């Protein structure tokens, strides 16, 4: 299974709809300081079920909705959709039911001050279902395959009991 593309709209500094295709193995993202690169990483963590606003550098869930700029008004809705290509040997039992034409679309949408809803292939599901889907694939918003900016050295400086998570995820 792998991610084939991601669509964001109203998420942090991405006020307009933006699509990022992962057509190749090594996809580079460059750009000046403050242009929005790390916001893309946070969009992926968020759609996978990340609920701690602190780990998205905010202090409340509304902080991820586009808050306006000197030329554009703020928005009230933010949404991110992850498009996954899948083959049957990849997936565990809890997610087998989603293998229709080999694709899974996971969408998360938030309305300011109301809360967020999740959909898988267009059908509304609970947050747990999405978190479960990614946990089976030993990935997800806190997994060790996402290295946040500035945290590359952390794995080494953690205590041995914290480091064992690496083992548990891979097992």
């Amino acid at each position: 299974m792998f991610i084939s593309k991601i669509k964001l709209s109203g998420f942090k500094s991405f006020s307009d709809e933006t699509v990022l295709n992962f057509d190749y193995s090594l996809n580079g993202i460059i750009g000046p300081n403050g242009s929005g690169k790390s916001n893309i990483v946070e969009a992926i963590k968020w759609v996978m079920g990340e609920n701690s606003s602190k780990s998205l550098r905010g202090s409340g869930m509304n902080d991820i909705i586009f808050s306006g700029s000197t030329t554009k008004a703020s928005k009230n809705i933010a949404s991110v959709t992850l498009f996954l290509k899948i083959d049957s040997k990849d997936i565990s039992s809890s997610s087998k039911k989603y293998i229709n034409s080999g694709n899974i679309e996971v969408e998360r949408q938030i309305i300011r001050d109301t809360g967020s809803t999740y959909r898988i292939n267009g059908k509304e599901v609970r947050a747990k279902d999405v978190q479960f889907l990614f946990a089976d694939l030993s990935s997800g918003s806190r997994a060790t395959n996402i290295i946040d900016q500035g945290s590359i050295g952390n794995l080494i400086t953690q205590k041995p009991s914290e480091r064992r998570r690496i083992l548990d995820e891979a097992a």
Partner: protein
Amino acid sequence: ARNRVLNTFASINSTFSELFKKLFDGGKAYLELIESEDPLEAGLELLVSPPGKKLQRISLLSGGEKALASLALIFSTFINRQTPICILDEVDAPLDDFNVERFCSLLKETTKITNKKFLVITHNKITMGYMNKVYGVTMNEPGISKLVSVNLDKIDSEFAAE
């Protein structure tokens, strides 16, 4: 469950040692389960020594050495797993040019043996050169992020701000 953890530990340990030697061009490194007899409770310790140096407390490693050792560990767990994507946000920032090249060739080799996808955010021109495709994120309209597809040859002109 205990057996599964022990098997995973053995496979990660041998991959970690091998990747460490590749990234550091020598030296030695291995993992140990400590603090408990039960593999389900034990902590994971790393013992590393860069080439020419004695086995040291891991806290004495330099900023670049810690980053490189972390990458060896991350890649050793990644190869065994099913993850849909690996995201690396400016992991090359503490590395000197020599080690950036080593990190990038490890990236390239890994994509040859798996069909994993990588998302690599960087300011380093060497790393940009290794990518199959480069996206640029700009804020031409202040405060609004837009995505543009970047042609590597043009990097100097279009992304002068880089």
